[in-house]
């Protein structure tokens, strides 16, 4: 079949093909640990979240909605509620809704747009890509929140009460809540690996569960422990007590950690096509 037979190695039964001579200086692999340093994977993933048209528009829409809500409230809202705290609460509402979608898109694009064929070839250790995506989503959420804080401050100065009534507990609570929501987006994205299904699930499933726990009295107690929207209410308000933390942990485990674990397993084992 072939013109040459492999002579260089005795253990290799593979017949050689091609005009490269058997005694040509054989190319050798670069020394070093497998894969790419994590910092580079992280930077690439962070960049990929905002460099597409869809990603950029999500950020623009989030900013625009926050600005509109703030402006509307300052102009038409009850003047006595327009304190720094009240304004920030308003500005973070659209963020809690839209940040998960950015997380979803970061997780699903590798499969829905098939960019995984490049991503997982450049870094074959897929777990690190998943980790980089999660961290990048968290960093992005923190940056977006910082912008919302700045916008709220400006609104407070321009048309608010000028009251600086934000407590550290509430600031930290809002940050943590947004991080939970964006991570939930990444988790659902990894779980379904399909953008529309993941978005609909993130929006609909918690609502369905809320309605179920309200309608069925036997589920009411369970709902208190497993409803992410309920358990983050004291978090946004900065009024977390002992039981609230436990409830946040249980709801977070079910709505974030569980899909994150199953989704990561899927990504690690799925064939990239």
């Amino acid at each position, binding site marked *: *079949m*072939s*013109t040459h037979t*492999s002579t260089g190695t005795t253990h*290799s*039964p*593979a*017949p*050689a*093909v*091609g*005009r*490269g*001579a*058997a005694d*040509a*200086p*054989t*190319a*050798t*692999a*670069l*020394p*070093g*640990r*497998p*894969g*790419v*340093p994590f910092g*580079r*994977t992280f*930077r*690439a993933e962070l*960049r*990929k979240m905002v*460099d*597409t*048209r*869809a*990603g950029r528009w999500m950020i623009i829409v989030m900013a625009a909605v926050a600005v509109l809500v703030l402006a509307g409230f300052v102009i038409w809202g009850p003047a006595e509620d327009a304190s720094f705290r009240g304004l920030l609460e308003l500005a973070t509402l659209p963020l809690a809704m839209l940040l998960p979608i950015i997380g979803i898109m970061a997780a699903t*694009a590798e499969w829905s*747009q*098939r*960019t*995984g*064929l*490049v*991503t*997982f*070839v*450049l*870094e*074959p*250790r897929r777990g690190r890509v998943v980790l980089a995506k999660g961290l990048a989503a968290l960093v992005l959420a923190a940056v977006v929140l910082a912008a919302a804080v700045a916008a709220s401050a400006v609104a407070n100065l321009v048309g608010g009460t000028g009251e600086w009534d934000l407590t550290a507990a509430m600031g930290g609570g809002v940050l943590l809540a947004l991080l939970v929501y964006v991570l939930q987006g990444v988790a659902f994205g990894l779980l379904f690996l399909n953008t529309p299904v993941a978005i609909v699930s993130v929006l609909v499933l918690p609502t369905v569960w809320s309605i179920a726990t309200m309608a069925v009295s036997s589920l009411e107690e369970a709902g208190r422990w497993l409803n992410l929207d309920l358990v983050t209410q004291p978090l946004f308000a900065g009024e977390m007590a002992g039981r609230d933390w436990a409830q946040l942990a249980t709801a977070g485990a079910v709505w974030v950690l569980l899909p994150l674990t199953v989704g990561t397993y899927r990504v690690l084992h799925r*064939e*990239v*096509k």
Partner: protein
Amino acid sequence: MITVENLTKRYGGFTAVDDISFQVRPGSVVGFLGPNGAGKSTAMRMMTGLTPATSGRATILGRTYRELHNPGRQVGVMLDASAQHPGRTGREVLRVAAVSVGVGKARVEEVLTLVGLTDKEAGRRVRNYSLGMRQRLGIAAALLGEPQVLVLDEPANGLDPQGIHWMRGLLRRFADGGGTVLLSSHLLHEVQIVADDLVMIGRGRIVAMGSKEELLARGGTTVQSTDDARLTRLLEAAGVPVSRTGSGLVVDGEARVVGEIAARESVVLLELRSGGSEGLEEMFLGLTAATSREGDAA
């Protein structure tokens, strides 16, 4: 260097890649040729760690793909030119890859020039790219890390004839510099232009491999003379099987044998050549059809 040893992939009862073994040495441009669904892409995905092999293994530069340090620096891979985010510009696709591979922006501009994408084209979103432009972008991405090995799935697909010749030059220069190239194609005429050596695959199995000339020679020798009837008698007398075609004879023997007989007997030859693309095409169809029948009987 790419080494594939007894590589096999089964999906349930279906065997997509069936015990293939070959080695591509540095300095070679090898075409991986087979009809659609022959298992070319599956084999290439196994070589690059995207699909786990059922059995056997593939190594690049002596290591399995997943063991490679910064693989983008060692192996340039393009498995599907269409698999790009449509919302990114061509330049941005390369910049993101450059971050991961660890090369600078200057290298991005270098590879853009190398594959002939203009500044304006690089600034357009991939959504608006033709298939040919996507192929060029995919090749640019593969070359980004100045690798020693290229693994390209259907790189000439969607290129115009000029583009195919351009690719031949590019890959030949890459191989002449000590690089190793494995590229796949389902079109014989395309791979004939781009590659120097072929591995033919049908129904997951290797059906033939070797240099293009060697495989062409197996398609027989085409000969045409002023007196084909006399030449036929002479060749048959010499024990060389001959068959008539519309425009001459096809001889199951080397061109040299035919030429010698013609010279000795003073037959005027009008044409004498080994195989020809028709011969290889016929063999390609024949070989793949043969494995299909085998597959059906099994």
